[in-house]
């Protein structure tokens, strides 16, 4: 066995009851390389890496770690072998501080001594640009900082092989750049890194080699230098989908949502939204674009009735709804796809069918009883229409892949016949074609006369489907463009806080 291989996985097969998540997959990871894993939602990327991390056992196949044949029995065994995995969805404890987290991971720090932890991480802080505030609580951190904590955890535990499952899907562009700097440094020091992402640009930028999975099978492993987006997309799905076009031109109707000088606080008690005013019309997609953490979450929650505004007014379909609860708003036709929907908009322990009615179960209720046949019919139609990969209606939602869980939320909210849809980063975690289909669906409900308030961080997405675009920065709107006058450069400057 060659010494330069950190990991060699041979012929890995893993079946869940009726799904073949991995079929005879070969995968190798060299010392000092960043190896990207690509594939559609449900292609088996997470499964393959969970096998390497010892979370699940393969049905067939062999694993060699550092040249030695190994059965990875559990995550702690994996850690002893120097393998660490950062999951698609963070598994940090919100109420702990960074220092406490790191202390828990280290076998050297028995008692929480700040000095010891500082000594421990000083090297990483300096060498790998992994600086984070040790006293901050996890809930106070941005997604990018959480990612850093996860990586620090792995390094402290002595990992030499790092698996990062979609680390960038909720990071701002700047944070992505930061992360890539860390990864480069780690690679140059001989760490072996697996990087999973749906963003082809990122993959081409950061990785040395790329392995593509399709429906559980490995399609190819190619050097990044020989790859380009079109080839990759072809390998992943067979073809590159043509982008959705906003061609609907009939003039938008009356205002479905009006927001008047709205002020909203965040969880920490600071003002997150400062005097925002705008309106969304029927048959219009109104885009709010900005870097994450500029008040999008708070604004969306206030409109959905989940957060009380401090000041200002919200009118939904002509009626003042400041004090209305989420039920009343949903009843009047407000659909909502929140940020980090896997945490707040689904319950992994419930079934797919139950999750498909989560926000609308009262529509399926007659004389207090939930109509099972109606629910099943509904869930089936969602699965079909939105191409959700699930083993059935009555499996737990946690058995769905990350992207398919997101599709379930999108399907539920888009199919609820909304008057207004509020969607925060709906395509996060979706593969290229699923993102594309989601955008098409947004255009579809717009054509049917719904208003859409779309929060996004992706300028291309905004330009592609929005009718009007507002830039949000530090809780205020910094400019409002119609699609015709929207300009990429102007928008990116405004997003970065440059006043024009």
């Amino acid at each position, binding site marked *: 066995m060659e010494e330069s291989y950190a990991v060699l996985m041979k012929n890995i097969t893993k079946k869940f009851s009726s799904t073949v998540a991995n079929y005879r997959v070969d995968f190798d990871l060299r010392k000092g390389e960043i190896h990207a894993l690509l594939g559609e939602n449900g292609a088996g990327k997470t499964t393959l890496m969970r096998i390497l991390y010892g979370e699940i056992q393969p049905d067939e196949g062999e694993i060699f770690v550092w040249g030695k044949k190994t059965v990875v029995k559990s995550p702690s065994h994996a850690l002893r072998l120097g393998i660490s995995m950062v999951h698609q969805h963070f598994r940090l404890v919100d109420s702990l501080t960074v220092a406490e987290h790191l202390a828990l991971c280290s076998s050297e720090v028995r008692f929480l001594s700040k000095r010891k932890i500082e000594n421990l991480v000083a090297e990483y802080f300096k060498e790998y640009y992994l600086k984070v505030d040790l006293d901050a609580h996890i809930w106070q951190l941005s997604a990018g900082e959480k990612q850093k904590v996860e990586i620090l955890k792995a390094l402290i535990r002595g990992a030499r092989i790092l698996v990062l499952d979609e680390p960038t899907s909720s990071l701002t562009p700047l944070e992505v750049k930061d992360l890539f700097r860390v990864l480069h440094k780690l690679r140059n020091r001989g760490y072996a890194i697996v990087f999973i992402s749906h963003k082809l640009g990122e993959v081409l930028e950061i990785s040395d080699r790329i392995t593509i999975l399709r429906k559980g099978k490995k399609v190819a492993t190619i050097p990044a230098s020989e790859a380009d987006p079109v080839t990759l997309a072809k390998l992943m799905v067979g073809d590159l989908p043509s982008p959705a076009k906003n061609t609907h031109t009939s003039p938008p109707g009356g205002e479905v949502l009006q927001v008047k000088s709205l002020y909203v606080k965040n969880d920490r008690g600071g003002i997150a939204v400062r005097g925002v005013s705008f309106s969304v019309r029927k048959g219009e997609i109104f885009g709010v674009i900005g870097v994450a953490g500029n008040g999008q979450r708070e604004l969306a929650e206030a409109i959905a009735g989940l957060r009380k505004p401090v000041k200002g007014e919200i009118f939904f379909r002509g009626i003042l709804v400041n004090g209305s*609860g989420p039920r009343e708003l949903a009843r009047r036709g407000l659909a909502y796809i929140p940020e980090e929907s896997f*945490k*707040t908009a689904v319950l992994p322990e419930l079934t797919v069918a139950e999750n498909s009615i989560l926000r609308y179960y009262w529509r399926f209720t007659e004389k207090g009883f939930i109509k099972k046949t109606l629910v099943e019919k509904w869930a089936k139609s969602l699965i079909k229409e939105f191409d959700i990969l699930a083993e059935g209606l009555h499996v737990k939602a946690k058995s769905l892949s990350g992207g398919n869980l997101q599709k379930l939320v999108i399907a539920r909210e888009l199919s609820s016949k909304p008057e207004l849809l509020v969607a925060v980063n709906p395509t996060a975690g979706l593969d290229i074609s699923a993102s594309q289909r989601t955008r098409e669906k947004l255009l579809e409900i717009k054509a049917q006369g719904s208003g859409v308030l779309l929060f996004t961080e992706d300028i291309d997405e905004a330009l592609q489907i929005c009718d009007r675009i507002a830039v949000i920065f530090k809780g205020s709107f910094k400019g409002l463009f119609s699609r015709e006058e929207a300009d990429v450069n102007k928008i990116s400057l405004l997003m970065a806080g440059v006043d024009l």
Partner: protein
Amino acid sequence: MIIKIEKRSEYNRYSALDISILSVLLALAVASIIMWAFRVSPTRAYYEIFVKTLSNKYGISHVVARTIPLLLCSLGLVVCFKAGVWNIGAEGQLLMGAVAATGVALYLMPQSPSWILLPTMFTLGAVMGAFWALIPALLKAKARVNEIITTLMLNYVAEKIVEYLVYGPWKSPSGWGFPLTDTIPDQARLPLIPGTPVHIPTLGISLLSSALVFLVLRKTSMGFELKVYGFSEKVAEYATVSRTKVIVISMVLSGALAGIAGVGEIAGIHYRLRLPRSISGGYGYTGIIVAWLSRLNPLACIPFSLLLSVLSVGSDAIQITLKLPRGVINIFNGLILVMLLVLDFLAKYRIKVIKHE
């Protein structure tokens, strides 16, 4: 040496029910060690508890009689626990139901015929139990006061109220100064299965309640709301579930069922109010164990209530025949709960001892 706790990688081989049964068996095994310490043969003890108790009409009928309040209490707790509302106040809610029943039968309408009196006792008993649960429910819903503490404290308040009544204003003048009220009139007494202490209407209510609670949790939107809230308060808010509704309804339902259990104890067993310990014998607390053993399945509450009341009747018997100290039953209950918690933990986690290099 380091002790490490890690999550098991694959889903455990044991179902929740296996773990319940295993924990009962383990508890019995550990209890036998304790019996040994008292120089009592465990085989003999278990023979007495299980075989003797269940081989005669007296034993069986007492087992069934004790199952009734236990089942009613555990059903209510299942509803609360499903919603993640930690009601440990069934004991107090039961006692308040008993107080209401006695009050109705002795003071409010002692002259009324059975067909008015008994339904009134049940209704007011349920209302009183529900009211006792409503207090902590509102405190939790409106002011986020921890319900574990309030329900527990209200148990003590209920006990004090009962004691006050039986020592004070309600004490029977013809009772030789004992802490007892007068006996309730004949028309306030429940029909029994002849020759047994099994009060038929309450038995019916308890079995019917199992089916009803099952139906509510499985099929209704209310059940869905309880489940969603039980998993996550945040997601429940997103799902347009009303927090106040979930807390109040689960607690009120639970309190009403415990209150009905209290009525049954007065109108079917004691025929008078007496000291709290004689009325209840800890059904409200044992109900917690039954609810957990049943894995919050209301139908499974029936066999597990039966099992724990066999242990209860059986250990009363061995206290006398084998001269074991009082409170053997508490040992059983405590051990079962501890075993259940330990096994649940071990099913999910593995404990590893690593020698220091």
